[in-house]
């Protein structure tokens, strides 16, 4: 099963397996991973599922849509021009069997 590896600020790590079609935001919410809020349920509307995707996975992600782009300008923690994504827009599947992300220290 695909998996997401969440790295936290305190050096703790959550490794969570989840079926194809699940977004990184949903994986976090369904498994009580700290630091991901996901207020709007995945509509790219709230910028509270911000993650920094680690090198090595970035080229497997879909393009940043216009909706995601404007939300990435509204994140609580500073945006990283190459690594910042919304967790709700990063979806596990055949093209993304595994992804490793750093969870920002704040979402609100």
């Amino acid at each position, binding site marked *: 099963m695909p998996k997401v590896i969440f790295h936290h600020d305190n050096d703790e790590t959550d490794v969570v397996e989840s079926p194809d079609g699940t977004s990184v935001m949903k994986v976090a*919410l369904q498994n009580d991973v700290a630091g991901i*809020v996901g*207020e*709007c*349920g995945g*509509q790219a*509307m*709230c910028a*509270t599922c911000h993650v920094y995707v680690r090198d090595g996975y970035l080229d497997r992600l879909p393009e940043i849509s*216009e*909706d995601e782009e*404007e*939300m990435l*300008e*509204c994140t*609580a923690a500073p945006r990283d021009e190459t690594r910042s994504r919304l967790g709700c827009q990063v979806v596990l599947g055949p093209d993304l069997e595994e992804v490793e992300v750093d969870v920002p220290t*704040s*979402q*609100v």
Partner: protein
Amino acid sequence: MTVDTTHPRSIPSADWVTIPDLYADPYPIYRRLRGEAPIHWVPAVNRYLVIGYEACHTIELDQERFTADETNSLMKRSMGHSMLRKDDPEHDIERKAYGGVLRPKAIKQEWTRVFEQSFATYLGRLREVGPGADLVKEFAAPFAAENLRVIMGFENATQEDLQRWSQTMIDGTGNYGDDPDVWAAAERSSHEVDVAIDEMLPILRDRPNGSLLSVLGASGMPLEALRANFKMTIGGGLNEPRDAVATTAWALLSHPTQLTSVVADGRWSDAFEESIRWVAPISMYPREATRDTELCGLHIPQGARLGIAVGAANRDPDVFVDAESYDIDRPRKPHLAFGGGNHFCAGAWVARASVVNVALPGLFRELPGLRLDPDRSAVCGGWVFRGVTSLPVLWD
């Protein structure tokens, strides 16, 4: 070996709660209820009131167990069947039709100058009335109404029309007493909105712009759904930013040390977010249980009418330290004032842009010595919708 079975407790009944008490000040009631359980049956409002943060948040994220499509909904009667009372996928189709109209890019390109124009107009009106003016009546309400009028595309209406439509249809949505005069006023407004929409649609088809009516008119949304969504947006798009302006101003004027910090460091966003946590403009909204289920150890029967009291959840001491206080320096935690999940407020960024970036900093910049009128107290009211309804202010 025996298998543990869960035995959910039955929900306690709170027959001592009355609507007038809730309207006057719901927070002492919530404090008393909270000591016993996160959900209570409240006969006076004919609902199970859900007051715990975790319970409210769980319900928001679970439309399978807790539908937004409530039976005998007063909102449906007052405004028609909008997406606010639908679940996905039906809700999602209508939500997507709103497109980018209420999102940050359009706000920056089109609406910020509208907010600035409205601010100038109604600051002028406030000054004309002079010290002692009611900040709600002379500024917050017309400011919110005029912004909404332009965003929605009502070139054929005034901000006063928007205020009347919003209030009467919201009164219908909250008409638990089934008052025929309230229904008559709501129906009159509903009809006026239909006429205004019908008049504007062909005009905007010939001359499209960035307004909500122009975008929805071109989206293929059926007219009945368009009308219902428009009425819901008139309701939610006016009273909430109005109340957020007034309640935040009142909170800051009542907490001078915090006001000093906000002004010195431009912390208008902190002031606003804490204000809507403290007094959520939409404090309660309905859901309905689709099956017998369990939540926070309590048994909820199928068909149960639930009142999701986010105004109470936002003061849950399990989540917020010293939750009853207005404190811009509290540890930042997500509040539920904009709702959560698929029904997360579509106007959240419009509210933030108009209130945080324009109205609040502008008022405190342009009115030196802004302060509460010592002779006339601010008036607060409401529990379904709650805010400062009158705020007499003085300035130098």
